[in-house]
């Protein structure tokens, strides 16, 4: 066990206030040859630090997927019990038109909601960044508030506002002598849900983009203006290209989120009969499990949905990593002799 005074001395060397005291022994004067441990010994501690997280990750992110797949390979019948059925459940899902209708619906949903969200977010973020309006802090907090609101409450708020019998929009329509907008009809339902999702996610994207824009050095903007750039030109050629990664990330997360759509249709289903049991893939899987009690089939559906998301996410991660050179060196994978 090293001498206590060495530990004391090192602690003082970490404390900047006493760096000047020349009489103290500090780490740099200690001969390091015999106390230097091998890198491999340090390396093993890496495992120990990540272990708790990785274990829980394996238990609650990987294991469920494996178990869902395992369950989906079986079929339960009243007569005959649970039997191995190979990919039968997957065949059922893939040949189910209701399932594909749901998939088509969420893709359509994403195709509209995601670009809309990003467009609005860019417009607002750029506006904020130009700094021509005061009370920046107030807007920043306000725009981020929807992030703190759970999907359930957001859907309830908008759902009640959409209500044709007591919603405020219907009231306004009546005042103007018009028919109340059919938010919760079969035709209006998807846009109405789209609005809820836009409301819930745009603010988050605004703040993310605004933060990215703020990281752009002032000198760049100034140089462009001196060179004669108009405000629009400045935005188009300097600022937007610099936040492209943030926009791409927002797009990816938006698409993945759209595929998962569950809460909004589920809550609205009590207000709008137009929400069918197979409205979105996740809703279909949920109803299959709980109303239909067909857990194996639901497992197959859930596995497909999760699988699609994972494929998307993996693709995204790898294209980003290949497209830009990052600081996370790959030499670590070979257990190289890079100093810590």
């Amino acid at each position, binding site marked *: 066990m090293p001498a206590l005074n060495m530990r004391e001395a090192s602690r003082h060397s970490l404390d900047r206030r006493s760096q000047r005291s020349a009489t103290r022994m500090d780490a740099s004067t200690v001969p390091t040859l015999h106390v230097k441990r091998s890198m491999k010994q340090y390396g093993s501690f890496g495992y120990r630090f990540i272990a*708790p997280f990785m274990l829980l990750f394996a238990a609650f992110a990987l294991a469920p997927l494996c178990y869902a797949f395992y369950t989906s390979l079986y079929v339960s019948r009243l007569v005959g019990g649970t039997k191995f059925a190979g990919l039968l459940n997957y065949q059922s899902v893939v040949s189910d038109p209701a399932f594909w209708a749901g998939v088509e619906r969420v893709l359509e949903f994403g195709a509209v909601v995601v670009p809309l969200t990003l467009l609005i977010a860019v417009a607002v973020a750029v506006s904020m960044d130009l700094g021509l309006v005061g009370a920046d802090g107030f807007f920043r907090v306000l725009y981020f508030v929807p992030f703190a609101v759970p999907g359930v409450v957001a859907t309830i708020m908008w759902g009640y506002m959409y209500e044709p019998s007591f*919603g405020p929009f219907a009231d306004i329509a009546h005042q103007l002598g018009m028919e109340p907008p059919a938010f919760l009809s079969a035709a209006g339902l998807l846009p109405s849900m789209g609005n809820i999702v836009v409301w819930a996610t745009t603010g988050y994207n605004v703040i993310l983009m605004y933060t990215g824009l703020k990281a752009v050095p002032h000198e760049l903007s100034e140089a462009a*203006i001196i060179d004669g750039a108009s405000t629009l030109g400045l935005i188009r050629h300097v600022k937007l290209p610099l936040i492209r990664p943030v926009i791409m990330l927002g797009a990816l997360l938006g698409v993945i989120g759209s595929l998962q759509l569950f809460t909004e249709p589920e809550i609205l289903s009590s207000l709008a009969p137009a929400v069918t049991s197979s409205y979105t893939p996740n809703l279909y899987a949920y109803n299959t499990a709980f109303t239909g009690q067909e857990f194996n089939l639901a497992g197959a559906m859930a596995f497909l949905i999760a699988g699609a998301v994972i494929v998307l996410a993996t693709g995204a991660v790898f294209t980003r990593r290949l497209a830009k050179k990052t600081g996370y060196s790959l030499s670590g994978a070979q257990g190289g002799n890079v100093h810590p």
Partner: protein
Amino acid sequence: MNPVARGRHYRSARLVVTVVMALFAVYIALPLYWLLVATTKSNDALLTSFGFWFSGRFELFANIGHVFTLDKGVFARWLLNTVLYAGAGGLLATALAAGAGYGFACFRFRGRQLLFYTVLVSLMVPFTALAIPTYLMDAKVSLINDPLAVILPAGVSPVGVYLLRVYTEAGLPKELLDAARVDGAGELTIFFRVVMPIIRPACATVLLLTVVATWNNYFLPLLVLSRNNVFPLTVGLSVLNSQAAAGEGHQIIYTVIVTGGLIGIAPLIVLFVVLQRYWRSGLVLGSLAGT
């Protein structure tokens, strides 16, 4: 001086910007405003009066009373559950993410890159994708109706690991670690005495983010919890909503839902406003690391 202010078309730019920001602000505030107004009305007033303005007696406190006396105080139970799940889940997630972030940032070991890529991929896979598989697994191991079924998954925060790794790499000087090791300090001691004080701000951000995510989680608790007294607020409100729509005959039910909703989101919004600097710094980190 704002560089744009020196550009041409300053006044029209200012007008456009103000309109855009104000419109968006109104859009964001609209349902929240509606909610606030709605909670001040009696059930009849809620169903008959104009949504965007007050009507009749100010019933907010009466409504709050109704919320908490509903069903022998089950709402308070839901609120407590939510606090428990979010708090425990958040603390667990932050602790694990801090350790993992440090491990990925400061050590070299075999499979480091691969494991981190796995974390990155899962970063983009939302809770909802894993909800049904987790339910199936929990049912098999009899974890249904157990608070752990919500708390443990909440402790897995790939975002936290990512943020803390970036922060640790950027903010922890290697010399400190070397000095402490040369000194003979054990690895755990180093982690708690040297690393933790430095990464504390990032930990606060991760804690805030995971608390919010767990508080707002709906799909998973809906699946794995079936007994009324273990529901979090999200599931409880949803149950009330379906009951109201099915016309369960409770006269008070709509006001209970909106007031319950307000009580459900108020703590988080307050937390957000008060702890602004933590999510701001986290976003700076996230967006910089992503670019």
